[in-house]
């Protein structure tokens, strides 16, 4: 039982690093993909957060990004192995197009996550650890403190720039 907890915790850290890296690589903190993302960013900034981090958080809300790709890829690997993960990537791609997202962060994240999750299932992890881990990872960005999360993302974005 403790082992499963530790696996979920490790999966959360791996998922966090994966999706934040991909999102920042695809320049999500730079500009709002849709007007709604900018509105979310404005409100987060008004609440004491950083604009660039808020923009990335707004983009996560408004379109399936690498975080959604990582979650659905983990779900795909859980139900059907690598083909399931790649099917999830296709579904995320369709989701991006429906949401008029110009980028490919979600699809790239899903494909990368498929292989990462599969690799970890070969060394004793379960795909379910990554489903729970990804939910915890997104909770730390979107659900605990918008102020602190947006400032952290803005700091990482400055490193990227």
């Amino acid at each position, binding site marked *: 039982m403790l082992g499963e907890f530790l696996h979920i915790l490790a999966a959360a850290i791996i998922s966090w690093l994966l999706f934040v890296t991909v999102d920042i690589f695809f320049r999500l903190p730079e500009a709002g993909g849709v007007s709604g993302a900018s509105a979310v960013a404005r409100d987060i900034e008004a609440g004491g957060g950083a604009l660039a981090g808020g923009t990335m958080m707004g983009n996560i809300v*408004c379109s399936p990004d690498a975080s959604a790709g990582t979650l659905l890829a983990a*779900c795909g690997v859980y139900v059907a192995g690598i083909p399931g993960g790649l099917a999830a990537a296709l579904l995320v791609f369709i989701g991006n197009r429906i949401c008029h997202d110009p980028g490919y962060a979600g699809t790239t994240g899903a494909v990368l996550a498929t292989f990462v999750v599969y690799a970890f299932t070969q060394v004793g992890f379960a795909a379910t650890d990554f489903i*729970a881990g990804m939910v915890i990872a997104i909770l730390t960005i979107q659900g605990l403190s918008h102020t602190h999360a947006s400032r952290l993302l803005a700091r990482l974005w400055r490193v990227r720039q």
Partner: protein
Amino acid sequence: MIALYIVAGVAVFAAIRAVIEKNTGRKLPYANVLNFAVAGTIVLLLNHPLSLVAAAAYFVGSTLEANAVASTYAGGMKR
């Protein structure tokens, strides 16, 4: 099994925070966490290839709704 309870717990937590938060712009990220957790719960409850389709359909649909709500909140389409 623990994974399911963690995900369900996060869903409840996110739902409560989304209800408590008054500012619409800051409410949406909490709702987003709720969507992630519900999509994860669907797959954890039903280990079947089609549950992936159900989770993705739910997730993309809820993202599109969030997109629409946020865009309208921002002032809607400019003509």
